[in-house]
C-alpha cells in the first residue's frame, strides 16, 4: 500500500473540516426554521379543534373559528386551477411536443422565467387593472383566482414540461411510425405516460396558490365576511389574508388565535407539498424505462 504522507494527512484534515463546515451551514439553514415551526405547533396546537375548523369567526374575529376562510381558500384554489391548468398544460405541450428551437420558443421561455419572477404585489396590481376594472369582474373570487392563475402559470408549465420530456422520444417515434398524427401520439402515448408527473406539478401548484396573500388582497379576498361564497362573483375570506388581518389589523385578538390560523395554513400548504414530493418519489421508483 501507499505510505501516508504529510500532504495526504493535511488534505484529509482540511477535507473533514470543510465537510463539517458545510454540514453546519446546511443545518443552520434548516434548524432555525424547524424550531420556529415547532413553536407554531406548540402555541397553535391547543387552538385546533373541530369547532375551530367548522365555525364562523365571531366578536369581530377575536373568537370563533375559521370556516369561511377555509372554504374561501378552497374556492380560490379550485377556480385558479381551472384557469391555469388547461393553459399551462397546453403551453407545456407546445414547448415539449411542437415548438422548434427558434426565436419564438426563446421568447416564450424568457416570458415564463420573467413571469415567475414578477413580484406578487405587481400581480395584484395587474389583477386590479385587468380583471377587477377592465373586464369588470369586480372584486370577486373570479378576479382573485385569475390573478392567482396568471401567477402560478409558470409552475404548471415548468413541471408539466418536465413530466412530458421524461417520456422517452422512442415512444413517440414508434407511434408516428404506425401512422398516428401528432395529437394521437400525444393522447395515446405521451399523456398516459406522463399524467402522474403532471399531477405532481398540479399538487405543487395547489400548495403555492393556497398560501398566496398579496395577489388576492385587492382582487377578491375580504377582510371579514362571515358567509360562505355562493358563486365566483362573490367576495370571500381566505386563510392567508385572515392570518394577516388578525395578526396586524384587529385589536385584542387572543394570543393563540393567529397561531392556530398560521398552523392550519401551513399544515395545508406543507401537506400538499409533501404529497407532491411523495408522489414524485413513488413515481421515480416505479419508472419502467
Amino acid at each position: 500500500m501507499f505510505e501516508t504522507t504529510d500532504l495526504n494527512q493535511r488534505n484529509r484534515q482540511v477535507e473533514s473540516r470543510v465537510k463539517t463546515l458545510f454540514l453546519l451551514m446546511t443545518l443552520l439553514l434548516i434548524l432555525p426554521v424547524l424550531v420556529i415551526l415547532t413553536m407554531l405547533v406548540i402555541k397553535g396546537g391547543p387552538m385546533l379543534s373541530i369547532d375551530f375548523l367548522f365555525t364562523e369567526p365571531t366578536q369581530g374575529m377575536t373568537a370563533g373559528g375559521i370556516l369561511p376562510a377555509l372554504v374561501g381558500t378552497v374556492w380560490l384554489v379550485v377556480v385558479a386551477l381551472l384557469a391555469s391548468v388547461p393553459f399551462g398544460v397546453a403551453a407545456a405541450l407546445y414547448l415539449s411536443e411542437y415548438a422548434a428551437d427558434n426565436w419564438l420558443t426563446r421568447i416564450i421561455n424568457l416570458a415564463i422565467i420573467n413571469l415567475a419572477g414578477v413580484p406578487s404585489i405587481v400581480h395584484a396590481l395587474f389583477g386590479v387593472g385587468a380583471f377587477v376594472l377592465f373586464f369588470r369582474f369586480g372584486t370577486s373570487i373570479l378576479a382573485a383566482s385569475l390573478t392567482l392563475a396568471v401567477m402560478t402559470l409558470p409552475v404548471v408549465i415548468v413541471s408539466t414540461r418536465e413530466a412530458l420530456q421524461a417520456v422517452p422520444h422512442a415512444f413517440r417515434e414508434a407511434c408516428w411510425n404506425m401512422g398516428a398524427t401528432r395529437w394521437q401520439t400525444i393522447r395515446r402515448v405521451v399523456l398516459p405516460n406522463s399524467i402522474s408527473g403532471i399531477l405532481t406539478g398540479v399538487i405543487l401548484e395547489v400548495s403555492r396558490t393556497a398560501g398566496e396573500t398579496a395577489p388576492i388582497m385587492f382582487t377578491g379576498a375580504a377582510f371579514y365576511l362571515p358567509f360562505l361564497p355562493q358563486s365566483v362573483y362573490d367576495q370571500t375570506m381566505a386563510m392567508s389574508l385572515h392570518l394577516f388581518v388578525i395578526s396586524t389589523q384587529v385589536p385584542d385578538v387572543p394570543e393563540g388565535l393567529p397561531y392556530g390560523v398560521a398552523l392550519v395554513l401551513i399544515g395545508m400548504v406543507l401537506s400538499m407539498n409533501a404529497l407532491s414530493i411523495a408522489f414524485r418519489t413513488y413515481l421515480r421508483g416505479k419508472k419502467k424505462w
Partner: protein
Amino acid sequence: MEASAAGDFDRRNSSWYVDKVVQALVFIGGISGILCILGIFVFISKEGFGFIANTIDIKEFFTSPNWRPTSEENPTYGALALIAGTASVTGLAMVVAVPFSLGAAIYIGEFARGKTREVLKVLVEMLAAIPSVVWGFIGLSIMNPVIIDLFDVPVGLNVLNAGVILGLMAAPIMTTIAEDALKAVPDHYREAAEAMGATRWQVTFRVVLPAAKNGLVAAVLLGVGRGFGETMAVLMASGHSINMPDSIFDSVRALTATIAAELGETAVGSDHYQALFTLGIFLFAITFVINLAADLVLRGIRKEA
C-alpha cells in the same frame, strides 16, 4: 384502390383536421406566457403612465425620501426612502442567505450521499413552500420579542427582523437553484480530478465551483429578485415606517409593502392610486432586469458546455 400513391398518403380525414385544431389550441397555450407578461406590462402601465407623464417629478421620485401621498395641501411622491427600505432589507437578507445557501448547496450536491442527501433536499424544498404571510407572522410574533430581548431595542420590527426573515425565505430557493447548477457540471470533470488524486474538497473548489460559477451567480441574482419582490413578510416584519435607515435596528418601509398597505385606501384613478401603480412599474422593471440578467448568465454556461 385506383388512387395514386401520393393521393393515398394525403388523407385529410377527421384525424388530420383534429390534429390541426389541437395544434392551433396548443399554440395559443404556448404563447399564453407571453400574453400574460405583456398583459401585466400593459395593464399596470395603463393605470400608472398618466401619472408618470403628467403629475410626477422624476427627480423628486428618485431623490426625495418624502412619501406623503395623502397630504392635503402638498402631496409629495418621493420613493427614495422606500427604495432604501427595500434595498437595506434585501441587502441584509443576501448577507445572511448567500453564504449559507451556497454552503448548503455544496454540501447537498457534493458531500452528502444517499439517504442524507434525499432528506436534506426534501427539507429544503419544504422550507421553500412556507407561505410569505406565515413568514411575516413569524417575524411579527416570534422574531420581534427575541430581537427586543437580545439587543435591548424598543422595537423589534426593523431591518434586522425583515432581513433575517427574508434571508430564511430566499435561502431554500437559492440552495435549490445553486445545487442544480452544481449538478449541471458533468461528472467526468469530477472523475478526471479525482483520478489525479484530488480530495473531494479540492475537486469541488478547483473544478466544480469554477465550472458552475455562472449558475451560482444566477442563483444569487434570482434570490435578489425574490427579495425585491417579497411583499407580505416585509410588510409585517419591517415596521413599515418611512425611514432612511441608519442602522439595522431602524424600522423601514419597502416598495412592495407600500403598495400592499395603501392600495386598499385609494380611490381608483386618483393621484395616489396612480402613484402606487408607478411603484409597481418600477418594481416590475427592476425584477425584469434581474431575471433577464440571470437568464443571460445561465445562457453563458449552456454555450460553454
